[in-house]
């Protein structure tokens, strides 16, 4: 069930939460709405669910205009950041809620609830109350509750935002597997670019109530439409007018006409990956991402002078991204993504 939003407008008093937002989410996809807080991503998600009424524009689900359809009739599964667990009901009661509303028979309801509890690995906790569950368990319960009624689309509003790092990582991969199994069109909101890139196939980057860019993860990473997208999707350094990814900076010991002098300030080992923080002559701080082998070969020390060569850089002064000098020998490992660029989302 594809979802389309056309020219959505929403104001809260003086605050323009959505300003002419249009997105197109293909059937069966897993899409992330990514943006800083206040960018309008949650408002957009809530508008798709019918929890927020748009001032203008359209929401189309599976080809049907649902702009004026109340939330209860949209058949949308919604998962809230803070779980919205029904505190006075057991886990079973929570998951069964939508089925009871639909007047399912008791036996059938029970079968379906237990099937879902197995799916979210909460079987055996059916008689617990939400306040007897951990945050991660509560969120899985909320997910089972949303899936119980077999929604056309699944919407998740910062679903892992209130959980600690380890649980968040587990739930991410688990959500992706769940999506692979159920195939329900899924949109989730996050402000965490790593989470978005980890889970989603499609990204919609939002900022100040507008869509900055949408496309596949590779597309946005390799061909960001503007400075905002480039710095929000992936890490970035600024060198004058140009933007360079940390893994697109080559560190060498011998200068030539394309290098810039810099001093090594700090070397941080993050497992396999090494983060080298440098400062340029004009005081600009940059960091380069090296492998352990590269670091050993260069024998870098903190306080040492080294030379930087941007392998690939972008600047957004003109309409199209330009390559920095020296980019003729592509060394970035992510350069293979171009072939997959599509116009979807």
């Amino acid at each position, binding site marked *: 069930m594809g979802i389309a939003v056309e020219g959505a407008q929403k104001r809260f008093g003086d605050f323009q939460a959505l300003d002419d937002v249009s997105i197109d989410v293909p059937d069966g996809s897993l899409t992330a709405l990514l943006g800083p807080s206040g960018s309008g991503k949650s408002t957009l998600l809530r508008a798709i669910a019918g929890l927020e009424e748009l001032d203008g524009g359209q929401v189309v689900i599976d080809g049907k205009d649902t702009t004026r359809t109340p939330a209860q009739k949209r058949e949308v599964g*919604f998962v*809230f950041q803070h779980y919205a667990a029904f505190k006075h009901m057991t886990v079973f009661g929570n998951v069964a809620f939508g089925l009871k*509303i*639909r007047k399912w028979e008791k036996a059938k309801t029970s079968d379906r609830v237990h099937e879902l509890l197995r799916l979210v690995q909460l079987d055996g906790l059916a008689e617990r109350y939400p306040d007897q569950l951990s945050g991660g368990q509560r969120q899985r319960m909320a997910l089972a509750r*949303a899936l119980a009624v077999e929604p056309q689309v699944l919407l998740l509003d910062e679903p892992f935002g209130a959980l600690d790092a380890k649980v968040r990582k587990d739930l991410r991969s688990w959500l992706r597997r769940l999506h692979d199994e159920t195939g329900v069109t899924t949109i989730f909101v996050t402000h965490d670019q790593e989470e978005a890139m980890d889970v989603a196939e499609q990204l919609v980057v939002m900022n100040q109530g507008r869509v900055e860019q949408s496309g596949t993860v590779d597309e946005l990473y390799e061909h960001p439409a503007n400075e905002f997208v480039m710095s929000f999707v992936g890490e970035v350094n600024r060198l004058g007018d140009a933007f360079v990814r940390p893994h697109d900076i080559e560190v060498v010991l011998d200068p030539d006409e394309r290098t810039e002098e810099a001093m090594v300030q700090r070397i941080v080992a993050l497992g396999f990956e090494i983060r080298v923080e440098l400062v340029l002559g004009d005081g600009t701080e940059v960091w380069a991402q090296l492998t352990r082998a590269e670091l050993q070969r260069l024998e870098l020390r903190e306080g040492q002078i080294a030379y930087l060569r941007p392998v690939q850089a972008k600047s957004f002064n003109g309409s199209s991204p330009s390559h920095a000098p020296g980019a003729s020998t592509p060394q970035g490992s992510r350069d293979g993504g171009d072939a997959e660029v599509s116009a979807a989302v």
Partner: protein
Amino acid sequence: MSPTAPARWGLRTLAFGYLGLLLLAPVGMIFYKTFEHGLSAPIEAMTTPDALHSIWLTLLMVAVAVPLNTVFGIGCALLLVRHRWKGNAVIDGVINLPFAISPIVIGLSLFLLYGNDGWFGPTLSEWGIQVLFSTPGMILASIFVSLPFVVREVVPVLQEIGTEQEQAASTLGANGWQTFWRITLPAIRWGVAYGVVLTTARVLGEFGAVTIVSGSISGETETLPLFVAKAFEQFNEEAAYAGAIVLALLALTTLLLMSVGGRKAKQVKEES
């Protein structure tokens, strides 16, 4: 920093002393006085026709005023918390009036409104409805004085639970009515229960406003507090004390029923 042991004991003594002197001693005294010479005298005092009628009338006040104020209170709290608009500030202020105005003044105002020279009085008596010195007026007074309790108890609970559970219910297909019965009401049930207890206690004990509008006619428009007051004035201490005990027991029963009822309501919701 926690207080030192002597300070802690000092505080406890003060708290108990305060409660003991101001609450337990007077109430205990009434119990003692009532049952000083056994059970037969108080039972006899409370089984006279006038006494029984006053108990019945008091229960009638509770039976009418409490459900009405509960329904109104929940609805009003929902309006105040869930539907923000400018009129809310006015409603919010007006609801507090019964707290601010002395019951005597409430009684007088009802007297003026429904008396023979009042706005409504002449019209209503043309239709054959006697408000003053009869049950309708007393019910009006009881509703007036006990109106704010449920609203005041439910509003903060509604604010605290937020709207996410209700929104979740609506995305799961529940309409407004289903959401209210299955989600909102169970979530606010303790606030409602507490409001009902306070409302009941207030109606049971109401004296000032009811005195004015009822005329306090024995065996006709005399509620239990009025009965106690009259018995006391007529030096019928036996009846006064016994009536007071009945009032206290009624209030206590309410408290018990509500705490049991709250727990039951939860179980029922679970099974349904």
